[in-house]
């Protein structure tokens, strides 16, 4: 068993396992921030 595998086993040991999850996406916020920050000059953003 590798050190990393051992870590993964160890990490689950002390507490209660909740769930295996994945990253989620806030679509509205993504569009809003891309509009505001994607370009050097926000005025260049055209939808």
């Amino acid at each position: 068993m590798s050190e990393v595998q051992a870590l993964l086993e160890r990490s689950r040991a002390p507490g209660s396992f909740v769930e295996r999850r994945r990253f989620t996406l806030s679509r509205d916020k993504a569009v809003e921030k891309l509009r505001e920050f994607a370009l050097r000059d926000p005025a260049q953003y055209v939808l």
Partner: protein
Amino acid sequence: MAMELSERSADLASQALDNLVNQFARPLDFLRELVQNAIDAGTPHVDVWFRFQAKAARTQGVLEIHIDDFGDGMDERIIDGELTRMFASSKEDDLTKIGKFGIGFTSIFAIRPEAVLLRTGRHGDFWELVFHPDRSFDKVAIDQAVYGTKITLFKTMEADEVESFVARCRWTLSYWLEHSDVPVRFAGADLAWRDGEETPAPTPPSADPFAAFAAPSAPVGDHGHLAFEQLNRPLALDADLSVPVNAPDLTGFVGYGKAPLHAFYNGGLTLIRSSSGDALGAWRRELGHLSFKLKGRHLEHTLTRDNVLHDEAWLDAMNAVSNAAWRLRPLLLDRIAGATHPGGNPDPWLWHLAAECRGARAHRDIDDFAKTLVLPLASGEPVAFSEVLAQDRRLGHVLVSGEHPALDESLIADGLIVLSDRPAVRAVLRATWDPFWLGQAVLRSLEPLGVRRLPFVRRDQPIVCTDDVFALPELIEDDQLPPDERALVEATRSLLGTTGSNLGVRLGDFGGLGVEDELALEGPEEGGVFSREPREGWFVFSSRSQCLLVNRHHDVVRAQCAVAHTRPALAAYGLLCALLTSEDDRDLLPALLQATSETLP
């Protein structure tokens, strides 16, 4: 249907995560993102440290990269709603926070770690998250209290790669956090660590977490066998001359450095640090030659971090730099004046002025500083630039020193301005001329014809070495001349006298002056500085009344000397024929020939 929507949403999130991870062109920039998050969590300091465990009997092992903070930590709501939800950061309206995008944490995948362990806690809830290479993660509630947030990345690598990897991590942190408001502490890799050993806690819970503020210079501490150094340092500009920036919500410095530098910071985090001028927009031409560092809480970077956002805050910052540049210029002129004296070296300051003229187009204000600016004479003494310009208008060029100090001293003694000939002086002279003045004038006249551009026309400052227009030959007194040369000189004077010319004739030594090929020079009869003129038609006997200094070693002179002791008049005529090159002077030849023939037997 709901299941289908959920799957599509998951696919979209997966694609977004892929894109975000791949946008980190430099994988080690994950350190910047994690430290930025730590700072925004209110930590009094951030510790970055490493340890490596080689696998038994193998050179490969696992490097642990630890980023520990002592800030607010996270509860389940923040973990689910912000940390692992892309773009959902709640920090965008909080000026005390640097991060705004809600994507920085995804950078942990940029170095393709085998696993990432995150422990955190808030309000009595403590959590452990383990992130996998497929970017899924396990979330576990734990009993062990965690102070702040502790992140560990596990990366498999060869043992001999560890040192350079850690060095690159240090460089990355130093670059992005060089002026962080929050202490960033760094400890190199512990290569002696073995599994089962006690982890050297960077800062025990009982230690004062604010202690790092008290000693801002490295090294800052030693915990276990890890020696920490502090990477960030106070905001300062490495420049020859600088002034502080005075503007609301902005701190920093503007100055003249060895090379341009344009650096913007928010909370001490480097937004962009460039010398290309890309961060300056339309200010590039005017301010591109300067060095500056600006720190402001309203300054932002773009999503991809390739530039600073050109918004109102940036515009205020550029105006602040422009104002500071105006305060710099008189200080620069003072430095030039202070260094311009015999034995002084104003060159570094003159180079900055040349850049200022080329970049900021300071030459437009030349009337304002022409009396303040001084340039070094050949003697090292200062002379006002306004006097240089006045002589330029009179002579049509600017004189700079040549290879013969005695000549320069004679010219200065005669009241001429002879500048020290050095690249920095020439650079200032050239830069103080507007290279576009004539082009613009021509363009204005051509505008009615529809011409908008002209790729030519530039007035270059005529800069002339004293050697090119003057010489200081050695005059030989008549009683010092050998008989043949003396006979030639006396016969030439006599022959000239028959034409009514009062031009004097003397022999001189032109050796070592760069004028050895010249047959004659014109100058004062008593000796001194002789002018060098175009070789053909350069003097007119009838209109001048000075002295003609003839090169005693010239082939023509030597040939005439050979016959001067037997036929001096004929030798004199031969010499004058060689000297009379203008059309006006050649009209004298018949009379000279007549006078010569009358002396022949």
